[in-house]
């Protein structure tokens, strides 16, 4: 819990067992990856690290990850039979435990996602206990995304007026900004902005932001339920 986190993260979530970090956390990480992808997924390779790699079968991490990619919530009774449920979809998937030393925290998964349109997406996420998670990487970009708020994540060429241009579009939609985080590698190089919103930005406004000159990439990521 951050210094102002909800107590319902501690006495909760209501979830399918057996492990909040390895089952519920897996569902929530995969839901977040699914929201980052934000379009149909054809194939996923789940690369599992450290404790995830060692104990994923016993903790139902595999069923949880699959459930999240397919859009089930942490308290859905269907998680138990997720391999059967997945058979009834077109999703291709594979679990790959990684057994070499690596710099990642204990419960880490890398999603290598192939979208239905053929695009490729890599998401790295971590489960930190009690069902709480964060994503630290989307493709080549470092992020810190927890799924607590609908979040607009964007990468762009650093230049004056960028925050104004983006927040103007959001303000015109009457959407409140909960927090704004903005950094850059160096003056005039690549910059990063993450805007947590009180509700998800509609697609036409996202498109308008994508069309701003010097915007490289925009992810419009919906929040994930507790």
């Amino acid at each position, binding site marked *: 819990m951050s210094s102002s986190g909800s*107590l*319902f993260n*501690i006495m909760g979530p209501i979830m399918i067992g*057996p492990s909040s970090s390895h089952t519920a956390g897996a569902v929530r990480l995969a839901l977040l990856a699914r929201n980052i992808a934000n379009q149909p997924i054809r194939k996923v390779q789940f690369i599992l690290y450290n404790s995830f790699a060692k104990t994923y079968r016993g903790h139902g991490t595999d069923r949880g990850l699959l459930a999240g990619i397919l859009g089930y919530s942490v308290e859905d009774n269907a998680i138990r039979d997720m391999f059967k449920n997945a058979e009834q979809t077109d999703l291709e998937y594979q679990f790959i435990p990684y057994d070499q030393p690596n710099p990642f925290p*204990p419960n880490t998964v890398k999603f290598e996602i192939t979208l239905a349109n053929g695009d490729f997406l890599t998401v790295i996420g971590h489960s930190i206990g009690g069902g709480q998670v964060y994503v630290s990487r989307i493709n080549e970009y470092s992020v810190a995304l927890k799924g607590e708020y609908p979040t607009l994540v964007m990468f762009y060429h650093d230049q004056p007026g960028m925050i104004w241009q983006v927040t103007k579009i959001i303000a015109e939609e009457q959407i409140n900004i909960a927090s704004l985080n903005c950094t850059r590698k160096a003056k005039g190089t690549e910059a990063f902005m993450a805007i947590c919103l009180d509700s998800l930005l509609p697609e036409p406004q996202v498109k308008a932001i994508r069309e701003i000159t010097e915007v490289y990439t925009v992810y419009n990521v919906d929040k994930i339920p507790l």
Partner: protein
Amino acid sequence: MTNFSTFKDLLSYCQEHHVSIGEAALEYEVARGERSEADILLGARKILEQMRATIESGLYSDEPSMSGLSGGFSKKVMAFSESPQSFMSSLEHRMIAYALATLEENSRMRKIVACPTAGGSGVVPGVLIALTDEKQIPMPTLEKALLAAGMVGGIVSQRMHLSGAAAGCQAEVGVATGMSAAAIVEALGGTPQQALDAVAIALKNMMGLVCDPVAGLVEVPCVKRNAVAGIHASAAATIALAGIPSFIPLDEIIDAMVSVGQMMPPQLKESAEGGLAKTPTAVSFTERLYGEQPD
């Protein structure tokens, strides 16, 4: 100012405003600005109802867990409580059986409340629901007791990740035991100081607990550990309610737990590579279960 980052802050707030830990927790959650007081209490009630529902579905079930390592334990304890050999009170039998029932449902991949985690999900419901059944605790008091438990876990989680992988079982069943001790004191009308002393006494004895699950399952030692932990929380609450303080202040105990967690080798942090997980019995069970070594 309800943005408590230490137990000292929490205690001063309670003493200054003449509120219990549970009432301060409610104020904390209201001050976050996302939910109304009524909605928070409703949320607490929903959690208590799920805790009871999990216990009721598991209590007399014979169904084995997914691995076959557990199942039918809570039913046996309930039967034993009627036997002439039984020597604990009816309350204690319920605490043990309810925690077992919760963890058994968890290992069947059924619905539970993580509190603070799934691996430690039996302790708080075990003590709180048993106490309600035996001592007729009214729902508003029960809601506050649950919130008190949440506040304790919340403050600890600002300093350590509550996962066996990050800090061993002290961060899961350990913290759940501290949370439960506070909940008992709150439910029985003890002072905030007594509640935090109960947490301190519980945590001092849970410090250093490793996470060494057999075959990586949340079963051995987790299922029975949750049941024993409820009794442990009860003993800590009894000591505190009797007016015996903790010599070491709670905030210092948390710092010590963080440090112990950092010293703990990765083999004993939910990797199933040490402790009970590497005993001959566990290794041969793991081979039978998976048809090969998981690594």
